[in-house]
């Protein structure tokens, strides 16, 4: 009874957050622009592609391109979510909704929870709709059915929760644009470092390392520690995209990135609640 009583204001604030964001013209423009871009990409699925002189079959093209599109949408929606999150508290403050809500019998944690959930649900829906467009194009037009595509989209929403929590927290500590850039920086560094690690594990890189084995090696242990603990946003996307594959021949997929990002979400969420508890409502 007590739980449902404290959940009710959260669902209301979640609803208001969703409605207020959807009513923003900038949100509508972003959504329409993204949807048009996804539709325009559909022409790429029907091209002729050659790899090492061999033409790829239609299904391989569709699967490869839809996976690439999956990652692009995932990363793009993360940026859009950061943009939406950065001005969330400021707009609520400027438009008087913050003082309207908090002058009612609503605790600060309920307000913050409602805001987080509202933005998370909105950005997840945004990404899910874009992924659904790809799913429908490949299923209906190209007759390539990938049932895991939509599950993968939902799994990727963990990244969006990370972005929401991180930007909301940082926007309380610094200017919104700096908060946005910081989280963008975390994402870019994570993507680049994951790319470098993936490249370094390739056969060519391994051969180069063996050739230079005689040379003194610099100690990169602390880099490895930083890399290990860095938010694994790309890792979650890769884990999610592994669900797209119908065959399970790709072996073991590490689930560490999922734990990594979930733990970050919990830590950032806890810090956000703690910071907002002491925030002056002006």
């Amino acid at each position, binding site marked *: 009874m007590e739980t449902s009583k404290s959940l*009710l*204001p959260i669902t*209301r604030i979640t609803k*208001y957050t969703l409605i*207020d964001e959807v*009513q*923003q013209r900038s949100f509508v423009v972003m959504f329409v622009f993204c949807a048009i871009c996804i539709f325009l990409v559909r022409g790429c699925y029907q091209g002729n592609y050659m790899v090492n002189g061999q033409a790829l079959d239609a299904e391989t093209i569709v699967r490869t391109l839809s996976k690439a599109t999956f990652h692009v949408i995932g990363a793009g929606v993360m940026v859009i979510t950061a943009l939406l999150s950065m001005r969330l508290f400021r707009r609520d403050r*400027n*438009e*008087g*909704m913050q*003082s*309207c*809500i*908090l*002058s*009612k*019998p*609503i*605790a600060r944690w*309920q307000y913050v929870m409602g805001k987080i959930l509202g933005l998370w649900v909105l950005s997840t829906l945004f990404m899910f709709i874009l992924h659904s467009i790809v799913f429908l194009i490949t299923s209906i037009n190209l007759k390539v059915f990938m049932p895991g595509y939509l599950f993968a989209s939902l799994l990727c929403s963990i990244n969006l929760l990370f972005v929401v929590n991180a930007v909301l927290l940082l926007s309380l500590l610094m200017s919104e644009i700096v908060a946005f850039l910081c989280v963008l920086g975390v994402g870019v560094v994570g993507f680049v470092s994951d790319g470098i690690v993936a490249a370094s594990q390739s056969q060519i890189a391994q051969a180069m390392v063996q050739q230079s084995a005689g040379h003194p090696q610099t100690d990169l242990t602390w880099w490895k520690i930083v890399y290990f603990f860095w938010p694994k946003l790309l890792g979650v996307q890769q884990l999610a995209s592994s669900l797209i594959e119908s065959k399970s021949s790709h072996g073991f997929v590490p689930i560490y990135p999922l734990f990594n990002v979930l733990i970050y979400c919990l830590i950032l969420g806890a810090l956000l609640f703690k910071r907002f508890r*002491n925030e*002056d*409502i*002006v």
Partner: protein
Amino acid sequence: MIELKNVTKRYGSLTAVDDVSFSVKTGECFALLGPNGAGKTTIVKVLLDFIRPSSGVLSISGIPSTHAECRQSIGYLAENHHIPPSLSGWEYLMRSAELLEINRSEAIYQCNRIVELIGMQGRENTKVGTYSKGMVQRFGLGAALMGDPKLLILDEPTSGLDPIGIREIRRLLESFKDQGMTIFLNSHMLSEVEKICDTAAIINRGKLLVKDSISAIVKDGEALEDVFVRLVKG
């Protein structure tokens, strides 16, 4: 109803509120007076838990102001009230009702009653972005009245209103007072305060100068304005 004990609020080296203690009884119409920057709005915000005091204790109906439950029967109107421009006045009132867990049919009834009370019939369904400052202030007051609060905290309620609007607000406040509602009024309009309020406190530079009934503060042949100027100028 309201109790402040040794409340101090510091912003770095600046003391906005300095060891202020007073209480407001149930059914009392109380005015907090002071020049600009005296700390009136800070006291209101500390009371609503918008700002945490550096030291001191505040309670509303015996419940510490840090507990959300104490705001169950409070109506609050902020100074320079803002409403999201994408909403209509009606939607804003409905949101206020929803946040107070008022059921839909009761909320519609209360919204209709409040729209009539604040004199905004016919304008409630247009977007707030098209409203004047005074109209926003009226809807802010309307939202504060939602759920028939026992305590009304009004921070400069007549801000942005024309003389007719000011008179209407005064009449409304008088009727709320007659209904037994406790009113905490933060205002510069000393003539209005003198007409409506039973008690007043004057603060300057965060310090409480006086807290008493209006009749005790205002001596024979003086106006509240004279007392205010005399006390503030020291």
